[in-house]
């Protein structure tokens, strides 16, 4: 005997269910589907995905379209799957009901992954990236040696692949980043000669570098 409701298929009252984000589906699709649902014995065989937010109150996290149709058809009750309340579950429900585009991790993505993602985005109707070459963009992003350290997508604008500062934001729909911390510079600094360190200090604008010892230079360069 299972005592909680997570994972259960339940017949809930529409009044118990609310929706956080409204969907944008052509009203024809909703109205026409609602007509089919108004027939006696019609049942929403594709369930709404909900989670219980407070006692006996539920919130739609997936298949919002089904919910919209049920609402339009003025159904009293609707079949739902009860999901847990975690954020990850909400994301998965949205992705699996095509309400959210899944993202790939650009920090570690392969050439093929990047290409498929860019292709999807560029070929989408009304894409902001229209005219960008999939091949060129993929090749330059894939080859960018410091990609694993990127904290945001801005470096792409410097790759001269047609993705400008104005267009780069669109990529957030398909990419996310988990940048690695650049390796500690201090080990590299240890290998450098004193003149090299001084040159670097000059470049960084560290005052009084010419009189400092190697140890002090390393400390200040790694700290800064």
């Amino acid at each position: 005997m299972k005592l909680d409701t997570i994972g259960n298929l339940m017949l809930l009252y529409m009044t118990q269910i609310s929706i956080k984000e409204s969907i944008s589906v052509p009203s024809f699709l909703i109205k026409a589907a609602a007509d089919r649902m108004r027939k006696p014995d019609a049942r929403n065989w594709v369930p709404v995905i909900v989670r219980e937010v407070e006692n006996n109150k539920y919130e739609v996290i997936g298949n919002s379209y089904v919910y919209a149709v049920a609402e339009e058809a003025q159904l009293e009750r609707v079949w739902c799957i009860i999901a847990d309340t975690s954020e990850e579950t909400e994301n998965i429900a949205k992705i699996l009901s095509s309400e959210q585009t899944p993202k790939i991790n650009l920090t570690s993505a392969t050439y093929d992954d990047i290409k498929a993602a860019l292709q999807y985005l560029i070929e989408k109707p009304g894409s902001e990236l229209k005219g960008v070459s999939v091949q060129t963009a993929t090749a330059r992003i894939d080859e960018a040696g410091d990609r694993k350290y990127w904290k945001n997508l801005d470096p792409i604008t410097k790759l001269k692949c047609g993705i400008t500062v104005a267009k780069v934001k669109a990529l957030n729909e398909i990419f996310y980043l988990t940048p690695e911390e650049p390796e500690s510079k201090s080990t590299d600094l240890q290998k450098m000669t004193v003149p090299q360190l001084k040159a670097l200090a000059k470049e960084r604008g560290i005052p009084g570098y010419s009189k400092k010892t190697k140890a002090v230079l390393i400390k200040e360069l790694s700290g800064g």
Partner: protein
Amino acid sequence: MSEVEESGRDALTGLPENAQESMVGTMFIPPLFKALGYNQLEIFPQYNTGNGSVDFALRHNQAGDDIFLQTATNPNVLVEIKGRDYSLDEESTRYKSTVKQLKRYLLSPECTNTQWGIITNSCHIQMFRKHGKVIHPVTQCLEIKVTNIDDIIKTIKQKIYSPFTALTVAIYNNKGGVGKTTTTVNLAAILTILDKRVLVVDFDPNQRDLTNYLNVSPNKTFYSLLDDINEVVNIRDVIRPYAVKSGNSKQRLVFDVIPCDEGLGSKSDSELEQLFKTARLKEILNRVKYDYDYILIDSPPNWRFFSASAVYAADVVLIPTKHNNPFSLVNAGITIKSHIPQVQAVKKDGTPIALPIFWNGERITDPARQVAHKLMDEIIKQSHKTIDLFPYFYPRHTSTNKDKYVFELPSYADIAKYTFDKVPAVYKDKTAREYYLSLAKEYFLQ
């Protein structure tokens, strides 16, 4: 809103690792009591319960001159403290002995009206409720952290300041034919004779024994109440009084009943699970928990929707068995070992707990008693890795005293006879009345 002032929060969560009992008493306890709303005149340290001294007793002063610190009568809350070095982890033997100690104080003669008991060592805290003779947890044994101290205080205050009057009892055994309905009806009758306000819930729609037994039918159905998410159905329309004139006096005895309806019985368990949560019955009964002293739920055998809902709604579970029905004893073990912990894991407030089992209404010969004991010993032995069944099978058994006492409700043919008359035997028959009085006293009345 924060329940604890900033300064109090530090004292409540920042004690040194090995703080001993005296330090817990001086550092942790004052801000705790303050946060719970007790002033210095409402706290009695080293309170003599008549059965040993408990560390603290609390009660709000009444209007007039009744200062608890001076009168020292009728404490409302008892608090037993330990040092941080004394583990109150729920599995530890020290935890068990501390709970036992608290129960002894709560059941002492000076504390008949006490409602709450708390144990804490400043790392852990657990609250218990006393209802007559029954003591059951109302929280889990909670670990105190900076992040949850406010919630803990809030929970404890909420219970102290708006206490339910009703004790909810599920009468359940996974095995059928152990006299659940007879027990429920006659227990309700005897408690009513004793001036208790009683609600009986028939949650066994396939048999509806209780509803038939008492011959009551509702205005609105139980189903409509379960289905009533928006709380538009008046629960009073579903509750029916069951009244009899008591034998010799002209006194009219009444207890209330929520009868079962066919609508519920016509649906399968899996259909019902698609409509209602296991917690649904409890939600409904919460609406009347201030109106009764006892809510008794008659539940069907088999661990499905109805029995799980009944056990979920309960504070305590009363398990009738028959000494000569081995399956009823084995299933009592399963209920205690498996079903009840499952519910506890979901409810997360320490309830329900099982009351010790009893042998229900059969003639018992000595050899038969030996056979039953042997089986019970075997069940205890087989389960000892998961759970210690001794307190539930042999409540008087201790490591030093191997007492095998089990409460027996004696056999009495007339009890069954009155079932056909649709009147609880307790109302018609002196012997039956005495038997069920002893049952009520064994478990519920102090």
